[in-house]
Each structure stands twice: as C-alpha cells, then as structure tokens.
C-alpha cells in the first residue's frame, strides 16, 4: 500500500527568527529523500515539523493527500512517523532495553513490564547491527555509559522498533563509523523493499549520492529545488545551496603577503581530543584565520583545547615557545582570550551589571581594595570604542540587545589586551548592523597586530573576512582555502566532503 507524506509551504518562527519561510517536502513509500541545506537552512526544523515536535506557524501537512495536523510527537508516532533525533532522545540513566521500549513496554498479566519480553525484543533489534559494535552491547547496559556511536545506533533502533512507515534520519550518520553506516544503508535498502520511506538528512555528499533517490534542497528556510538524484551532480547541488547574489559587502583587508612575512605566533602540531584526530597548522601574527566546516566537526574542541579548557594531546607553541595548557588561567597568561559563542551560558552573567561583566576577567589589575573609579573609567572607554549602546554601566546585561550583549563578551576580553583571540561563532543571533561593526572591529584588531582565530557557522563571513580558512571535516583539516581558492563554493564543497578538489 503506497502512502505519502507531504509538507507544503511550511512557515516556522522561533521568536523573531524565521527558521522556515517556505518549506516543502514530499515522501512516498519505497523511496529515500535527502533533505539538504547549509548550516541554519532549516533542515532540523523541517524534521521537527513533520514529526510533531514543533507546531507549525503556517502551511499544511498532507498525509496521503489529506490534510493532517500533528499536535504532538505522540500523534505523529501513532501515524507511523518515526524520528531519529540529532540530539538523541535517550535517557542516560536507563538501560538500552528500557529506552527502546519506553511507552510501549510489553506488560505482564499483573501490569508489570515484561522484562523477559523486552530483553528478547531488544536482542532481536540489536542483532540488526550485529558485528558493528565496538563493545559487547547488552539490553541491560545503561545508555549513559555507551560511546556516542552506540547511543546513535540505539536511537535508530528505538525509532524503528514500532515499525513505522517513514523514518526521519536527522544527521544519524554523523557519529557512526563506516561499517555502521554501511550496515545502516543495507537496512535502509531492506526498508525500501518493505515499502517504507526514509527522510535522510545528512551533510555528507557521498552518502547522499549513495543512498538517496530524491533530493530536496533548503536555503534560508525556503525549498529551492527538488527532484531525482540521478538528474543532478554534487556541484549542481552545492550551487543550489548557495545564495546567488551575496549580501555581504565587506571586503578582506589586502595585506596578506605582509602578514605571511611576520613571525609565527601559534603553532599547532597533531592536536588530538575526543573529536579532533590530529590537527596541525601555523598562524602568523596579525592574521585572521577562519575555521570553517559543518557544525560539530571538532571546531569547538580546537578552540577549547587552545584555551586549556579541555584535555588534549599534541603540541602547541605560542610565540615560539612550546606550552602545555592545563587551565584557561594559563592560556590567559599567554595572552589568549576565548570569546564563547553561547552568550547566555558561557559568555555573560546576565543579571549582573555591564561593568561587572566587562571587568570580570580583569579585576586583578585593580588592586585591593578595588579601585572602582578606575575600573569604571576603563569600562566606559571600552564601551565607547565598541560603540556599546547602553543606559549605563550599572545596568544589567540582560537589558541589552543580543548584538550589544555580544559586544560586552568581546569587550570583556579586549580589556585584557590579548594577543591572540579565539572566537567561537560570535555572530550567531546578532543583527546585521552589529555584524558589520563586528567585522570592522575584527579587521581593525588585526591591523593593530592582534591575531584572530575565528570559527563561524556563517560561510559568508569566513569568505568575506578571513585571510585563510581551515575547513574541518570529521576532526581533521580537510583543506586550507586562501586567496583565489577561498570561495563559497569551495568552502561548502569542502565542508560536505564533496570530491571536487579540481575546482580548488
């Protein structure tokens, strides 16, 4: 029996941010549809709309061409729509079996969960991925103690355990190794034959071409193209994902040759952490180096390990002398500053005043008892140079807009006069005007001789602003783009791991 699920002209806002403005998707039994798009193009939102986790603001869902309304995940589930969530829906304290069968536990006559039955059923499901587990996986293992790839497999098994007719795989392959991906694809092949459908969301071009029958491309919340995979190649797909005319008006500072001539201020050799598998690069004084790639390819680990925030192995030399950084304090002493991306959680104390936030890393300079007057004067000056729009230094940071709050995060580190700045996606959720100010400021800082390592999920920024961009893929530097090769096409292609090196 052929079934179909369609989404038409879907609109979804999160507060003032438009996640989807015109999203469309069609899935029929027996096919795999790849949902493709750059960072923040609305893929995850789309999947959450068709599985009922978020309520849509506009548009229509059609199930077998009849209007449908998914008010909760339960409703979608009952209609046979299963989701493998990107940020896993597993409960770490519970066992594998309990997690898979949660809400659908087989019961005994006296109303207790039939442990034997769920154990047997779980073993059956686990056998689907037999031979790809790194450890001996048992139904009564706690999910919290499993490695990420096995958690992901459990999430997949949980989704298919109630025999849905459509499975949404949201980045399900991101944490799997090649054997596990291979096995998953074999299973998808079986599901297709059994008249099931799959919505496949992935950033890996190679996988999309291997498994998908159809594609649907999202760009800035709009569906900009859909069709059969056999009618398209990877270059054309990449082109669809990129905006035709760029709104980016900033041009790179043209002093690259001079910069290369300057001394190396940061040397990284074979840096390894949990998600970095050996990264080496050099940074010259005054350079603005971009770190690109899809989210979660190790960029955050790179910045955090340089700041001494997480344990790492490998060598880091700062201004020519090798350093082992064990604590952010040590990194700060070397003149490093990390501007975190998550303002609310890592960057600011929201309910405290602007003054306190700006001075938090610098109080030590003001003696004991603190020379508040001097601190205020310095903070005032920093605020002015950043063009911070505020009612006064005593106001809480929570009174500021997102862009101005981010300026405080930047300002608090600039007050320490760092030599090397590490930026972790600083323009996320910042308005366009402030972004432009940011770009000008960053370029200015480089002219002044500061060095900047700049991770951004916004590809345009990287291309428009940076001297060089290191593209991370799967914990490795896939390619270094600079000069003529630093284009959006190349950046996206490299991010996706697409094989069009000829263009570079």
């Amino acid at each position, binding site marked *: 029996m052929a079934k179909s699920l369609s989404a038409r002209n879907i609109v979804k806002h999160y507060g003032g941010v438009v996640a989807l403005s015109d999203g469309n998707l069609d899935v029929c039994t027996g096919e795999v549809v790849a949902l493709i798009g750059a960072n923040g193009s609305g893929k995850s939102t789309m999947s959450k709309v068709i599985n009922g*986790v978020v309520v849509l603001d506009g548009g229509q869902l059609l199930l077998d061409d009849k209007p449908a309304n998914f008010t*909760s*995940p*339960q409703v979608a*589930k009952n209609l046979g729509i299963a*989701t493998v*969530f990107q940020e*896993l*829906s*597993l*409960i*770490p*304290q*519970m066992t594998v079996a*309990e997690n898979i069968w*949660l*809400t659908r*536990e087989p*019961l005994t006559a*006296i*109303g*207790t*969960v039939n*442990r034997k039955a769920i154990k047997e059923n779980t073993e059956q499901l686990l056998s689907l991925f037999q031979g790809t587990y790194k*450890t*001996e*996986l*048992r139904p009564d*293992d*706690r999910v919290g103690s499993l490695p990420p790839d096995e958690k992901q497999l459990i999430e997949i098994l*949980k989704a298919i355990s109630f025999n849905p007719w459509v499975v949404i795989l949201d980045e399900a392959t991101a944490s799997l190794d090649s054997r596990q991906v291979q096995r998953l694809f074999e299973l998808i092949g079986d599901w297709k034959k059994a008249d099931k459908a799959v919505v496949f969301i992935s950033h890996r071009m190679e996988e999309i071409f291997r498994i998908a029958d159809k594609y649907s491309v999202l760009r800035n919340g709009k569906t900009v193209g859909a069709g059969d995979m056999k009618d398209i190649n990877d270059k054309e797909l990449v082109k669809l994902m990129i905006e035709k005319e760029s709104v980016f008006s900033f041009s790179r500072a043209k002093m690259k040759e001079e910069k290369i001539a300057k001394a190396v201020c940061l040397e990284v050799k074979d840096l390894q952490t949990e998600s970095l598998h050996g990264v080496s690069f050099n940074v010259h004084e005054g350079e603005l180096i971009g770190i690109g790639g899809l989210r979660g390819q190790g960029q955050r680990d790179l910045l955090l390990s340089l700041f001494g925030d997480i344990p790492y192995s490998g060598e880091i030399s700062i201004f020519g002398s090798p350093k082992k950084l064990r604590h952010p304090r040590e990194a700060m002493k070397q003149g490093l500053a990390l501007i975190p991306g998550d303002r609310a959680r890592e960057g600011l104390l929201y309910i405290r005043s602007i003054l306190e936030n700006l001075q938090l890393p610098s109080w030590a300079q003001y003696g004991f008892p603190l020379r508040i007057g001097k601190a205020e004067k310095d903070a005032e000056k920093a605020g002015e140079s950043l063009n911070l729009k505020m009612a006064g230094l005593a106001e809480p940071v929570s009174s500021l807009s997102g862009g101005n709050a981010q300026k405080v995060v930047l300002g608090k580190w600039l007050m320490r006069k760092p030599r090397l700045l590490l930026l972790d996606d600083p323009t996320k959720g910042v308005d366009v005007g402030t972004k432009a100010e940011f770009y000008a400021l960053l370029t200015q800082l480089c002219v002044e001789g500061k060095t900047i390592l700049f991770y951004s999920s916004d590809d345009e920024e990287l291309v428009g602003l940076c001297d060089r961009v290191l593209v991370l893929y799967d914990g490795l530097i896939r390619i270094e783009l600079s000069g003529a090769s630093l284009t959006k096409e190349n950046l996206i292609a490299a991010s996706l791991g697409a094989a069009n090196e000829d263009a570079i």
Partner: protein
Amino acid sequence: MKRRLSWDYLMIRYPAFFPFILMILSVAINLFLQPNMLERETLNSNMRVFLPLILVTVGQAIVLIGGGIDISVGGVVSIVNTILATRVGLEGSPEQMWQFVLISLLAGMLAGSVNGFFIAYLRLQPIITTYATSFLYFGLALFILPNPGGGIYADIANLYRTSTPLGLPLAFFVIGGLLLIWAYISSTRYGKYLFAVGGKANAAYETAVPVTRVQFSIYVISGFMAALAGIAITMLSGSGNAEIGGQMTLNSITAAVIGGNAFSGGIGGVAGPIMGAMTLGLIQNIISFAHINTWWETLVKALIIVLALAVPGIIALIRRRRA
C-alpha cells in the same frame, strides 16, 4: 564492555549499596554502646521513633527520582498531626480516629496536588514552590492548633507503640510493605516513566511519555506519604503540636540523598533512602548513648551526616585522581 565489579557499577546498579554499609556500621556502633539494642522492647521503641521519618523519606525519594524536590512535607505532617489531635481528641473513639485518618490522607494528597499543579502544569520551580507552600501548610497547622495540646485516645496510640506481631516491631512490617509496593510500582510502566521524566524530561517528552502527569503524580504520592507519617507521629506522641513536622523536611532530603537518590533525578530507589532514614535515627541514638555533652550534640551529629554525604564524592575524587 568491562564488566568487572567496579565501584561505579555497584553505585549505579545498586544505589542502596552505600547506605547499606553505612547502616550496618551505625548498627554496629549503636550495638556496642547499647548492648540490649536488639531486644524486642528496645528494638520496637527505636523503630517506632524511626518510622515517621522513614515514611516521609519514601515520598521524598520518589519525588527526587522524578526530578523534583518537596520542601513542604514537614508542613503536611504538621497539618495531619493537628487535625488528628484536635478532631479526635484524648477522649476520641476508634471509629472517629479511623474516620480522621482517612480525612488526613486525603488532606495530604490535596496538599500534594497543590504542589503538583504549580510545578507540573504552571511549570514553576519545585524548590521555590514547595518552599512557599510549606509556609502555607505550617500556617494552616498553626491555625488549627495554635498552642501544643490536644491528642488522641491512649489505647489507639498504644496500638502503634506496642504492637509487635510475630515478635517483630510493627515498623518492620510497614517497611516490608513499602518495599513490596515499590518493587511492584518500579517495574510497572508508570515506574519507567518516573525514571524517564527524572532522567531527561525533554527526551521523555519526545518519546511521548506523559511528562506533566507524571510530575503531578509524584507530589501527590509525596503528600500521601507525608500524611501517613503525620498519622504515625501523632500515634507515637499521642499529642498535637503544629511544629512537629519542622525538622522532617530536611531530614527526609538528607536521608534520601544518603540513600543514593541524586538531586539531578532519574537515579535511586526506595530501599536506600529507608536505610538512610534509619541511619539518621541511629546516629541520633549513638550520640545520646555516647554521653556527648548536650552542647556538642548538634555539632557532632552534623559532622557525621556531612561525612556520610561526602563519602561517595570523596571516593569518586580519589578514583578520578588515580585514573
């Protein structure tokens, strides 16, 4: 997977392991100081004092597993105590007593429903909400019985104080019953929901667990258990006092945490917290038998409790250092 009998494995798999050791230790010390402790009369007089806290702790333990906290349990104990002491009275008949026992249980569940409504449906912070309602409940208790007094008929009270079926304290049977009921509940679907909601509420919601209803239910259970404790403590003391539940809130939380239930939710059980509550009682006993100067009593007791709370953390720290 490494499947050796590691400390972590024991702690996660058997959350009652540590409180068990602690309780055995306390019993041993207590026995040393009070050799007749295991005789029927002494045992019963100890257990009947421990039982009210054990009952409150069981409710608190379930709330903690579900990812909440209930600061208002002491207030509920006081309300029940004042209701019984004023409505049944020293001359009260058994019929009257059982009638008001029923009313007390309903009152406890009502108080729990108020907490549950605020927390589950209005999505308020559990700690703030129950802290606020605790004043409401203590206030109500004071309104019912402004000055200590009243009481229940002595024969009824003695039913609680002196019953030793099969030669064992009544409390043993109550604890056994609680453990059986918990063994059943925790293996039903509701039990799984409880752990799921406490473990990671978002993930539970995405899996279509009725998160709100489960959150509501834990406070009703806690209110019910607090009411049971109120009944027990009234039969123990035979009189009424609006302040009687004051100490029990924090003691129940301490007992549950010693018993292996984490504030973060989703972990633990009921057996551990029961042993935790008994350990707190035993520590009190030890201190009074060790003839410690009254002035030092609170300090020594607090030190022992802090140590008991810190031991799992200290062990984890040592293990981290070694790794």
